[in-house]
């Protein structure tokens, strides 16, 4: 262990604390709530899923125009890519997402699934 190594550890530890802190803030304190999900293929909106649709179970297959497929699974407010024939399977390995801002990306298929969110204001609490 040399002097520079210690510096590297400090820098990485600081980055980790900052990163996990931001994620913790997003998940626990941020006043946004999930309003559904949006699926984009090649930059174009393929499907928008409302928050009520997010609550019901559904499984559907997206056929990618350039070839290939992704099977999307919705269950109890969560969404995931269940199966895909892309090469790296990063989309499948990402698993379930449910919180605003969380993203699944399948770059080989240019597919993006993102949870949409809306800032929660006082009015929406008082109904």
């Amino acid at each position, binding site marked *: *262990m*040399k*002097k*520079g*190594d210690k*510096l*590297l550890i400090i820098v*990485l530890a600081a*980055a*980790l604390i900052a*990163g*996990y802190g*931001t*994620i913790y803030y*997003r998940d626990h304190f941020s006043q946004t709530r999930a309003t559904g999900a949006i699926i984009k293929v090649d*930059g174009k909106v393929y499907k928008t899923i409302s928050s009520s649709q997010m609550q019901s179970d559904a499984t559907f297959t997206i056929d990618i125009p350039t070839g290939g497929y992704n099977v999307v699974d919705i269950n109890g407010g969560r969404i995931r890519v269940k199966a895909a024939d892309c*090469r*790296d*399977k*990063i*989309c*499948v*390995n*990402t*698993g379930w997402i449910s919180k605003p*801002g*969380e*993203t699944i*990306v399948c*770059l*080989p298929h*240019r597919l*993006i699934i*993102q949870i949409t969110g809306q800032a929660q204001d006082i009015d929406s609490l008082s109904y």
Partner: protein
Amino acid sequence: MSKTHKMVLLGIMISLALALHIFEGFIPLSGIMPPGAKLGLANVVTLAAIMAFGFKEALAVVLLRTLLGSMFGGGLMVFWYSIAGGVLSTAVMSMMYKRYRASFSLAGISIAGGVCHNIGQLLVFAVMASTGGVFAYLPALIIAGVATGYFVGLVASFLEKYIKGIYNFHL
């Protein structure tokens, strides 16, 4: 070292890196590692090329390995984000090895390279998906990069004394 000697060594390095690159693709890591994380075994060869030659040669090894690797399996998209990660990590590791060799161990250099590889990949992800949301995976990828980078650096430090020997090798 003669030109031919160097060319042969670089050829061996590229084929070794390619073999490791393809081999690690067969190891199932889903569930253990965060999405997008890899072992980075081929980084051993990148480090060896940096130690034996320098930035230019190491970059050539990385570029050719990535190009051939995505031909054997991966495709164009995988090529782009591998190349971004590869170039960034090679540049950072070469600079650390050349300028700050005295203050960093090989494990430290390799860890920094691993983390830079992930940052480069995420940059391409963010640009192509036009969302910064993918950076939420960075903390998990840093942890994975530190773990794999440490062992890659360890392997490279075992190689170090043999690499110094290639300059004394005569046929």
